[in-house]
């Protein structure tokens, strides 16, 4: 874009042609106040807050709708403009309640800030205010009409951004109101975007409203624990009786790829931490009943039992099930613990995508994976399978907004009429189960197209589509778990014929990709290195059993036959998720680490209450392979993170934990005192370290020590630590991954979560449950009509 030169407040500035004046001013630090203007939404020109003087134009102009032009001379601050702003605010405040001290937005309200900066000290309005009672539009959305200043941001973000169109404007002039799509309630995706984008306290959320004041919270930027998209979320935490309580989730600072996007799960489903069923202390089965015990007792018992079984039967008598919601450091540690401490390769997890096949197909192809940011900027997208609107809300947001703002063509092929077809240049429906033929066809087998032909799509149309796709540049190819095994390789083969093509393989949970990368497989070590053979891991870890271990079905069989003597389940609920008969493990010693007494935990011999992802630190790898920091926000006293628990079990087994976690080397630091006159120094020290991007690594429970090892040993993870610590996502790569192993695609089972469910975890979120109930209630009403 050619640059345009203009003068603002006497300063010569340049901006690319086509830039809005308000943005050009912002880029040089000149603030033009605005309400209705919002980047990436359609222009509204409704609030008139952004009036500026442009020479040779008769009246003041709205900076939010004016495009810069060569030689333009602009004044953003003059008596005339000051007066205009004052008048605009006076009109807005005409019917606005002046009760900021009790308003939910007080302290972070744009109207409050503007009035403070630009408003008049007094109002000439004498008329009584037009009061209306607050309305509840859904379990999530509340509307307080008199506070609304009619900026229409909510209407636009819901329609243009979310493609839901649940909000509208009714009546006209002073009687205009924001209206929900179903008379007195909204029927929508409950994302809360409208609430967060509202500049005032007109829209408030069921989760946060009137719980606290903004200045009473501490804000921690971390990564969402739900789906595989890895939204950055800023959690507002506050002191509570049990530690630190999370009271809000948003991403208003727009840090992270997701900008200010979050779906309902990231924004509101953090409440599981304080669910009344949360396990608060270890349980040990005594006389057939799970009985509360101390950590010391429980860990000693687990250490003793695991040790005995290892000595007596060897490690192969123990099975380990990992999680897709634990951090990379924990997954890596668990993988290492199983091999090195227990001496077993019986390691598995709930597989939701064929990452090993993906890694194998991309071996030696650098730059072939698309990051979440790429999905928004890609010049064209091919989407095969999956329903991102339900299963990958951020990915769907990226796709929609790429299509809307950049005009990228979307080609979607699916066995269901997914909602994203509305954005698609071309949507092709195929019969369920023909995805494999689709991959074959794409890779060049014209015969395979026969299975794809339907009354709406002829063979010629398929051939034309394939030709068309091959002409696209830098196509991003996104595929769901419908494609696995050989089909993934075929699709990658097709990608080789498109210049600059990149791929994304969709896995379901927050760290599904990480769990796979960290080797929670019976036949793969971290980085997809085959268990047989030699790799850095064989050298560094020392004792890696040489033959492939049991996968989950194998463990079940071994449980039945009695050869499996112990099962160690970390943050997973296989009994319910994979529909396993709960009694198969009744002869084994079962240890479960979880937040709740899940179906799996109920049959355990020892249950260890674990912290969740919002209560610990580490990293997650999202489904695109973007590595992001997980930071501790909430805290519940008495619980331990999975990392610490694993290390403690190793210790209780008499294992030298230095061989497990490389801690205590390098940095030496005075960590200060935690009690007495100098208390708090430890915290200050941590702040100092953090500000310098340094980490203590002083204790065996410090995940950063393992991150060192991951970055050193796991291929593709040698990203910039500085950028990572600064809170940016860092794209990992699969190009140097290990050779992988023959895999069993049939073991992949999709989580099939929708917008309002989140595996076992979702069942413990009141926010999600109340939305599910309200949606069900409405559907049954309709059915009864």
């Amino acid at each position, binding site marked *: 874009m050619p640059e345009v030169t203009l003068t603002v407040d006497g300063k010569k500035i340049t901006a690319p042609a086509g830039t809005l004046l308000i943005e050009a001013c912002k880029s040089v630090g000149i603030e033009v106040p605005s309400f209705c203007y919002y980047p990436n939404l359609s222009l509204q020109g409704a609030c008139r807050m952004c009036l500026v003087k442009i020479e040779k134009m008769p009246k003041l102009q709205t900076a939010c709708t004016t495009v810069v032009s060569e030689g333009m001379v602009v004044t953003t601050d003059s008596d005339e403009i000051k007066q205009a702003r004052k008048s605009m605010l006076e009109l807005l405040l005409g019917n606005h309640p002046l009760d900021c001290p009790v308003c939910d937005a007080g302290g972070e309200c744009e109207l409050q800030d503007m009035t403070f900066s630009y408003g008049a000290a007094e109002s000439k309005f004498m008329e009584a205010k037009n009061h209306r009672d607050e309305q509840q539009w859904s379990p999530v959305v509340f509307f307080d009409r008199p506070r609304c200043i009619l900026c229409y941001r909510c209407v636009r973000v819901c329609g243009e951004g979310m493609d839901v169109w649940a909000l509208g404007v*009714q009546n006209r002039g002073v009687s205009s109101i924001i209206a929900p799509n179903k008379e007195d309630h909204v029927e929508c995706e409950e994302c809360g975007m409208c609430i967060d984008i509202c500049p005032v306290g007109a829209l408030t959320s069921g989760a946060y409203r009137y719980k606290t004041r903004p200045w009473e919270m501490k804000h921690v930027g971390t990564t969402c624990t739900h789906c595989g998209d890895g939204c950055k979320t800023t959690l507002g935490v506050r002191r509570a009786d049990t530690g630190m309580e999370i009271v809000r989730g948003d991403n208003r600072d727009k840090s992270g790829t997701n900008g200010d996007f979050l779906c309902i799960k990231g924004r509101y489903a953090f409440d599981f931490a304080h669910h009344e069923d949360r396990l608060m202390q270890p349980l040990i089965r005594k006389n057939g009943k799970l009985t509360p015990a101390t950590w010391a007792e429980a860990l000693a018992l687990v250490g003793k039992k695991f040790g005995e079984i290892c000595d007596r039967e060897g490690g192969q008598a123990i099975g380990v099930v990992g999680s897709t919601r634990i951090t990379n450091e924990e997954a890596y540690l668990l993988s290492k613990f199983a091999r090195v401490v227990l001496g077993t390769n019986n390691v598995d997890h709930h597989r939701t995508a064929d990452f090993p096949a993906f890694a194998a197909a991309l071996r030696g192809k650098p730059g072939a994976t698309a990051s979440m940011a790429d999905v928004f900027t890609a010049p064209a997208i091919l989407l095969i399978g999956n329903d991102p609107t339900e299963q990958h809300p951020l990915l769907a947001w990226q796709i929609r907004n790429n299509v809307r703002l950049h005009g990228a063509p979307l080609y979607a092929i699916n066995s269901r009429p997914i909602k994203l077809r509305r954005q698609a240049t071309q949507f092709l429906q195929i019969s369920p189960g023909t995805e494999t033929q689709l991959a074959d066809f794409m890779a060049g087998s014209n015969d395979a197209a026969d299975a794809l032909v339907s009354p709406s799509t002829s063979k010629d149309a398929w051939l034309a589509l394939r030709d068309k796709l091959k002409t696209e540049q830098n196509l991003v190819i996104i595929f769901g778990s419908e494609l696995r095994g050989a089909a993934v390789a075929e699709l990658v083969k097709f990608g080789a014929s498109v210049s600059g093509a990149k791929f994304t393989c969709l896995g379901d949970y927050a760290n599904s990709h990480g769990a796979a990368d960290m080797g929670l497989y019976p036949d793969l070590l971290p980085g997809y290195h085959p268990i047989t053979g030699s790799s850095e891991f064989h050298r560094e870890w020392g004792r890696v059993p040489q033959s492939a271990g049991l996968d989950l079905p194998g463990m079940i069989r071994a449980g039945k036959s009695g050869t499996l003597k112990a099962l160690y389940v970390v943050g997973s609920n296989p009994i319910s998720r994979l529909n396993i008969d709960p009694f198969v493990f009744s002869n084994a010693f079962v240890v479960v680490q979880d937040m709740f007494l899940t179906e799996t935990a109920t049959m355990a011999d020892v249950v260890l209450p674990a912290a969740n992802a919002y209560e610990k630190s580490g990293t997650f790898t999202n489904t695109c392979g973007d590595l992001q920091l997980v930071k501790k926000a909430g805290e519940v006293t008495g619980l331990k993170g999975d990392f610490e628990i694993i290390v403690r079990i190793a210790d209780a087994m008499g294992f030298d934990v230095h061989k497990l976690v490389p801690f205590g080397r390098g940095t030496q630091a005075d960590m200060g005192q935690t009690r007495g006159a100098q208390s708090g120094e430890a915290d200050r020290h941590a702040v100092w370290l953090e500000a310098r991007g340094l980490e203590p690594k002083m204790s065996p429970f410090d995940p950063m020590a393992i991150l060192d090892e991951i970055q050193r040993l796991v291929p593709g993870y040698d990203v910039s630590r500085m950028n990572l610590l600064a809170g940016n996502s860092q794209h990992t790569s699969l190009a140097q991954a290990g050779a992988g192993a023959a895999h069993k695609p049939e073991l992949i089972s999709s989580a099939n979560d929708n917008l309002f469910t989140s595996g076992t975890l979702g069942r413990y979120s009141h926010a999600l449950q109340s939305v599910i109930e309200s949606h069900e209630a409405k559907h049954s009403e309709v059915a009864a009509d």
Partner: protein
Amino acid sequence: MKFSDTFEVRFAEMVTHYPTKRSALVPTLLYAQDEVGCLSDEVIAELAQRLELTELEVRNVISYYSMLTTKPRGKYNVQVCTNISCLVRGGEEILHHCQKKLGIGHKGTTPDGIFSLEEVECIGGCSWAPAAQVNYDYHENLTAEKMDKVLEEYRRKEMQ
């Protein structure tokens, strides 16, 4: 939902006039209202579907225009202007007269369903103020007596 053949002919022609379907919304709403009497939920759903809009969008537009209504009104909708020109020429008095005469207020409907009354903004008859509009007919230079005659006329029409 079924509309008359006349409606269908007009609708089919109307949509061809615009580059996008949604542009035909306002005229279509008027046709539908003239035929059905008001824009019922059923009408809204039907038109939303035909013009590829959400029902909410259709409702937003209806709420914007005072000439469109979702509630049934009398057979003859008496719209009395009280905007500037009419105001200075006695429009308010005409309105009050109608209220007394018909026994209903703004947006009311007589029990027999013949008349409803509305106070409206300028209807473009300023040169002959005060003015009123009954359905699509204009009545100008009104006085109380003249208004009585106008109302009589409609009532007689109805009796026939």
